[in-house]
Every structure is written in structure tokens, then in C-alpha cells.
């Protein structure tokens, strides 16, 4: 029996700069950025005061008052993205399909915003170690559970198959989609609604990155705060958002005449087993993940027409992944366009991997590579083609995206036009 293959047939995005896949693609191909002074709390006094926030109104996005009350913001973002993705796919999740439809959502810090807000009340502003449970919100346990995003996406879409949340920190958005593809390949589902969501813009998350000096301090230039691969870079900028994809078994999609964006051709994750936050400059484990993903896809490095970089805007990351690309792709690393979108939409932790997968699928669909915004003075140690400032027309039949996160997680995913592969394989 031939291996079951997985394709993307629907995309939904809620990202800084606009709700919906259209506004998202418009922003990331424009060279503009959506980073700004934080408005969700008063950031005065914090080392970093900039983030990429979504101007998201859950009611306008179609959530009911009860859905809004019982969910944290990261769940609301995901429900809106999931609705758009399923609409885009044209699928009707009827009774028969429901049991064959799963959910796999990624999130790194899940309900942190609610957790912090509730903590402040229960401890009376941090005054007491012992808290007063009489003040706890009746929905607090559901805000707290990372799994609530999978449950709520299942409710939004009608899915009744295998459901879970993948929470591998900043690679969650890739790893959740990889998990979804494995569930389809195993035959446990024909469709999986998958992606990532995080809404981390709160004092505790900004503090987490402040105390280790990982965030940019360009507070006076919020739109230019994140500068991946630029020698003036000072660190990452937090973001929030969600991307949800409809993954479908290839034949299932073909039978119903679905629009197919791309195939998930291969994926792999590796741990660096080195340090919870540090990276070795050689990029060995990320290279290993890329090579394994390409091997699974039976693709040569030369078939990668676009690389979506992690591009978080820290020196450590930029050099780490540049080394990884050279190690895994060889000479081709110098020929292929490489770009990152975090300067534009921020680092939304467990969401961004899925947002970047959406960017890869859209790059293939439109034949356009999004630029690396804010890259004006290249770091001489990062000597690849990072597509600075302006989008580029470029035919993309095969693409690679990577992610790197705390805990040492290194993930890679490879996409290709499924038609080109089936020609090769039937021979």
C-alpha cells in the first residue's frame, strides 16, 4: 500500500496587522511591520516596551458572548482562524466526516494572560503566598489548561476525531502540524484541523524575556525594533496570533476537487540536549532536522526554492540557523532565497511556526517570497540571500521552514507541489 500523503486545503490567519489570510499576506509582502509600543498593558519601566499586537475583536470575528467569556485570548484567536480555515477549505464536517476529523493545536504558553490576571486577584497583587480561592473565576481551570484550545477548535469545527495540543515551546506551531500529518498518515483521521496560537503579551511574559535580555531595546523605534540578520539587531520582539490549517489526506482532497495549496512532504524535530535557552553556533541539530525532513520527503536540497527562516532577531539565532542552512543544504544554501517574517509580525511563540507554514503555502500559491523586513545593514557573518526589505517574485515548488526554541527544540518542515511528486513516484 502506498503511503498516505497529506496536503493543506485551507488556511486561516489572525496576525498583527489584520485579521484574515488576505491582510496577513498583504502585510508580510509589503515590507512594513506591525510592531508597536505595547497597548495591552502599560509597559513603562520594562526593558522592552514593544510587541506585535493583534487588533482583534472576538465578537466581530463571530465568537458568541459565552465563547468569549469561557476562553482565554489565545483560544479566541484560534477559533477565529479555525473558522476561516474550514471555510477556505470548502469542507463540510458532517456526521460521517466528524469522527474522521482530528485537531492538533500548538501553543507554547497557552492561557498565561488569564493565569497572570487571575493570580493578581487571588494573591491581592502578589501580597500573599497563600491565595484566596473564593475569588477564582468559574472558568479559570479551562483558561489554565493548554488543551482547551484543541477542545474549542473542535467545537468550532465539529471535529470528533483524535484531538490534542502540542506544546514544545517555540517550535509548537511546526510540531503540531507535523503531528497532524502523522495522524493522517497513520490512518487515524482523514482531516486534521491544525495550527498554533499564543497570546503572550502580558507583564510576566515580557519579564521572562527581559530578565535574560532576549528582547530588543529599540523602544524609540517600535516599527524597526526587530532586525533579523542585521548587524544592528538587539533581540526578538514578542507577538501574538494564530494560524490554522486544514490538513487533508491527498486522495480525500482530490476526490472532492479541493484546492490544494501544498503537500506536507516531510518533517522532523531534534533536541539539542545542550541548554534550555542557549544554542551552539554550529547549528548541528537543526541541520539534522532539515536533512531528516528532506529525506522523508525524498527531496534534494536543490529542490528547495524558498527557506522560511526562524529569524527571531537575536544574534545567537541568526548565526545558529545560518550555519544550519549551510550544513544541511550545502552550496544550495547560497543560491536559495531565505527570509523571515518575525520582524513584521513578531515572535508569537507557539503560534508563529504555523503562521510561517501559512506564509510558505502562500508563497507557493502566489509565486512571491516575502522579504525580511528591517534588514538594512547585513551582518557580515550571515552571508546568505535573506531577501531584504522587498518581496520578490519567485516560483516556489518546494519550500522549507524551520523553528528553534527554548528547551533545545529544533524543527523543520518541507513542502512541495504534490503533482510534481506524484509524477516522479508513479514512474
Amino acid at each position: 500500500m502506498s503511503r498516505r500523503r497529506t496536503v493543506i486545503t485551507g488556511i486561516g490567519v489572525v496576525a498583527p496587522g489584520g485579521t484574515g489570510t488576505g491582510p496577513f499576506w498583504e502585510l508580510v509582502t509589503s515590507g512594513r511591520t506591525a510592531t508597536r509600543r505595547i497597548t495591552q498593558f502599560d509597559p513603562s519601566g520594562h526593558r522592552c516596551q514593544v510587541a506585535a499586537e493583534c487588533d482583534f475583536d472576538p465578537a466581530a470575528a463571530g465568537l458568541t458572548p459565552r465563547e468569549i467569556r469561557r476562553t482565554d485570548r489565545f483560544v479566541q484567536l484560534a477559533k477565529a482562524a479555525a473558522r476561516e480555515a474550514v471555510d477556505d477549505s470548502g469542507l463540510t464536517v458532517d456526521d460521517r466526516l466528524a469522527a474522521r476529523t482530528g485537531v492538533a493545536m500548538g501553543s507554547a504558553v497557552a492561557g498565561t494572560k488569564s493565569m497572570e490576571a487571575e493570580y493578581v486577584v487571588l494573591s491581592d497583587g502578589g501580597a500573599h503566598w497563600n491565595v484566596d480561592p473564593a475569588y477564582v473565576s468559574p472558568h479559570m481551570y479551562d483558561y489554565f489548561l493548554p488543551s482547551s484550545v484543541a477542545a474549542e477548535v473542535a467545537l468550532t469545527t465539529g471535529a470528533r476525531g483524535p484531538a490534542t495540543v502540542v506544546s514544545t515551546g517555540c517550535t509548537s506551531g511546526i510540531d503540531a502540524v507535523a503531528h497532524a500529518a502523522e495522524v493522517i498518515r497513520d490512518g487515524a483521521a482523514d482531516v486534521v484541523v491544525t495550527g498554533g496560537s499564543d497570546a503572550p503579551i502580558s507583564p510576566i511574559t515580557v519579564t521572562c524575556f527581559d530578565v535574560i535580555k532576549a528582547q530588543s531595546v529599540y523602544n524609540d523605534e517600535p516599527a524597526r525594533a526587530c532586525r533579523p540578520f542585521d548587524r544592528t539587531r538587539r533581540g526578538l520582539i514578542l507577538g501574538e496570533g494564530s494560524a490554522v490549517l486544514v490538513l487533508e489526506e491527498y486522495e480525500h482532497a482530490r476526490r472532492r476537487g479541493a484546492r490544494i495549496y501544498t503537500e506536507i512532504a516531510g518533517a522532523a524535530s531534534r533536541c539539542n540536549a545542550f541548554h534550555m535557552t542557549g544554542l551552539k553556533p554550529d547549528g548541528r541539530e537543526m541541520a539534522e532536522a532539515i536533512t531528516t525532513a528532506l529525506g522523508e520527503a525524498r527531496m534534494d536540497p536543490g529542490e528547495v526554492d524558498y527557506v522560511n527562516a526562524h529569524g527571531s532577531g537575536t544574534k545567537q539565532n541568526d548565526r545558529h540557523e545560518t550555519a544550519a542552512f549551510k550544513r544541511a543544504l550545502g552550496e544550495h544554501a547560497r543560491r536559495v532565497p531565505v527570509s523571515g517574517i518575525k520582524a513584521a509580525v513578531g515572535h508569537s511563540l507557539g503560534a508563529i511556526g504555523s503562521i510561517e507554514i501559512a506564509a510558505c503555502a502562500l508563497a507557493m500559491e502566489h509565486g512571491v517570497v516575502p522579504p525580511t523586513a528591517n534588514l538594512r545593514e547585513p551582518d557580515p557573518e550571515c552571508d546568505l540571500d535573506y531577501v531584504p526589505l522587498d518581496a520578490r517574485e519567485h516560483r516556489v515548488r518546494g519550500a522549507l521552514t524551520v523553528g528553534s526554541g527554548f528547551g533545545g527544540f529544533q524543527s523543520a518542515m518541507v513542502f512541495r507541489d504534490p503533482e510534481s511528486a506524484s509524477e516522479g513516484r508513479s514512474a
Partner: protein
Amino acid sequence: MSGQAVVTGLGVTAPNGTGVPEYWDAVRDGRSGLGAITRFDASGYPVAVAGEIPECPAERELPERLLPQSDRVTRLALVAADEALRDAAIKPGDVPEYQMGVVTASTSGGLEFGQRELQKLWGSGWRDVSAYMSFAWYYAVHTGQISIHNGMRGPGGVLASEQSGGLDTLAFARRKIRAGTTTMVAGGVDGTLCPYGVAIQTAGRELSPCADPGAAYLPFDAEAGGCVPGEGGAILIVEDRVGAEERGAPQIYGAVAGHGAAFDPEPGCADGLYRAARAALDDAGLPAAAVDVVFADAAGRRDLDDAEVAALTRLLAPRTVPVTAPKSMTGRLLSGGAALDLATALLALRDGVIPPTTGTSPGRADDRIDLVVGEPRAAGIGTALVLARGRGGFASAAVLTR
């Protein structure tokens, strides 16, 4: 490679025993680890009983640098992983680094650590917050620390589906084994027994207010009034059968024969639990009649227990198969609970003993199922079905065979 995933090592940290020998002795004898909450003053809380793990010697043997950078639960996970690797006679240096992966289930990361740092942030300002906060309290921390501690550079995973996550890690591990990874560390160790964590759990309205440790958690009992929270779980070593035999693994506890999962938002998740169990048996290629023992989810609330009994009686003829809930001795361990049930089921398969459900009265137990109550039961068992539900509609099932 056989394509069959087997479990070759177990590590346990539970309220009634740290380390497999101590835990298994306690469970077989029906010795509970539940007691009054001592970790903090819980007098103002609508819950009084929990399954706490007293400090164990193995925690003190961990590298000193881990102490300031980790939550207690992470250290328990590291202790369990160390035991499981020892039990399987695997020295991490002996296996190629990319051939060893880690997957854990999580619902709470390191919440006690998080509460402490939140207090600093809101009490005295962000500059006092620990530099380790960025990773010590998030959900991926156990997988990351186990990987670093043991030099494991293969696939990494973290799954969150509340209480059912522990079973899902076994399916994740099996996929990686089938794809060629030699050794997977899988399971879950979880718990939130700090003031804020327990307060959050009370919002779920699943906890028993009963202050008597012997009567607070009574699965399938007519007087069931909720569950109690606990901490701990289990870590399992999963390998390919041929690989395990070739390297001379000291034992094979059992095979991961089947896994199934489903989502069902209806209260109680009866249909979801049934579909998950059915899918797990189909995956194992076994009929329902092959099941020799069921390790139940055992929510300990009347409506939820009724739903599980409905799923079980739809799957198996009433009272034909023994059902047990040893978690009545540990409390519900979030994502650690189902992982611990897997370990317990494998020990039951090994020794031919079904550990009992404690607390529940034989006279009041639901008579539609054959609940093993009070005393352990000797039985020739070759196939175990482990069930788990996660809040919100998650259902998972695993089939283990000897």
C-alpha cells in the same frame, strides 16, 4: 526491526511510592498515598485531601545546578526518567544521540515555580524575577530537561490533552519507533499542589470537599462526590521489539498493541470513550473479548462514572471483565495519571495480579461492571485496556499485551 513497540523500562513517582518496587508493593496491598494537604494551609479551600509525594532521596542525587532552575515536578520527572533508563539497562551514552527521543505529557509545566515568580513580579518588580522563569514553568520543560540531562537529541514532543495526554505520548513514541528511532522516553509527571494551582483546580468543580482521605475519592461508588488532586506519574522506555531483544534488554514488560483517541464534547464523553477504545482494539487487531482487565479513567463523580460504565458495557458484556482504578490511591495526577496507569497495567501483566480500587465500598460499587475492590485479584491476564478522559472532551485508550 519488527515494527512492534515494546516497553522495556519503568520509572514511577507517586504519592504512595517513589520507585517501581515501593509503588507496586503499595498498590498491590491497596495502600493509599492520600492524606490531608500539608504543602500549604488549605483551611480556606473547598478541598482538603491530596496525593502529595514526600521528598525522596533520589531528588537529592540530581545535579545541584537543577535546583534553582526547576520546579519540583520537573525534578520528579527527571527522577522517574533516570529510574526507567536504569530499569531498561540503557546508558544514554551507548545509544547514538539522534536515536533517543523524549515525549512527555503536560498540563501545568512548573506552576509552583511560576507562582513564586509571579509573586516577585507583582510584589516587588520584574528585576527580581528569576532568569530561569522563561522555561521553568512552561509545558515543554520536562521534555527539554530530560533531553539535556541524558544527551538525547532525537525527536522531542510534548502533548497536552489534560488527563488523557499520558496515553497519547505512548502513541507518539510508537510512531517514532516505527520511523526508526531506537529508544523513546515517554510518559507524564504532573501536579499543581501549590496554593494557586489548587485554587485553579477548584474552579473545575471536579474535586471532592470531603476531608477524610479514605472517603474523598470513591470511583464507581454510589456515594462518589468528586476526585482529589495528586502529583506524580510515570516514565516508560519504549523500543522496537527486535532491537530490545538484540541488545539483551533485561525485560519486556509488554507491547504497545493499540492506541485510539477521540473527541466528544458531550458531558461524560461516553461515546468518545467508546470510540477511542474501539479504535485502540482495531489498531491492535483484537476483538473486545480479548480484553482481560480494564484500567478505568475513574473520574469519581457520579455522572462521569456513569458515562464510563455506559462506554464499558457497550464495548464489553456487563461484568465479564475486571475493571480497576488504582488511581484511587494516588488521586488524579493530571497528565501523569494515565502514564502511571500504563506502568501499573504493565506490572499487573507481568505479575498476573490486578491491583484493587480502594475506598469504594463493595456494596455500593456500580454492579454493571466487575470492579476489583478492596483486595488484589490474581488473574492470568494477557491484554489490558487503559482508558483516560481529558476535561473538555478528550478520550484516549491504549491496549497493552504481554
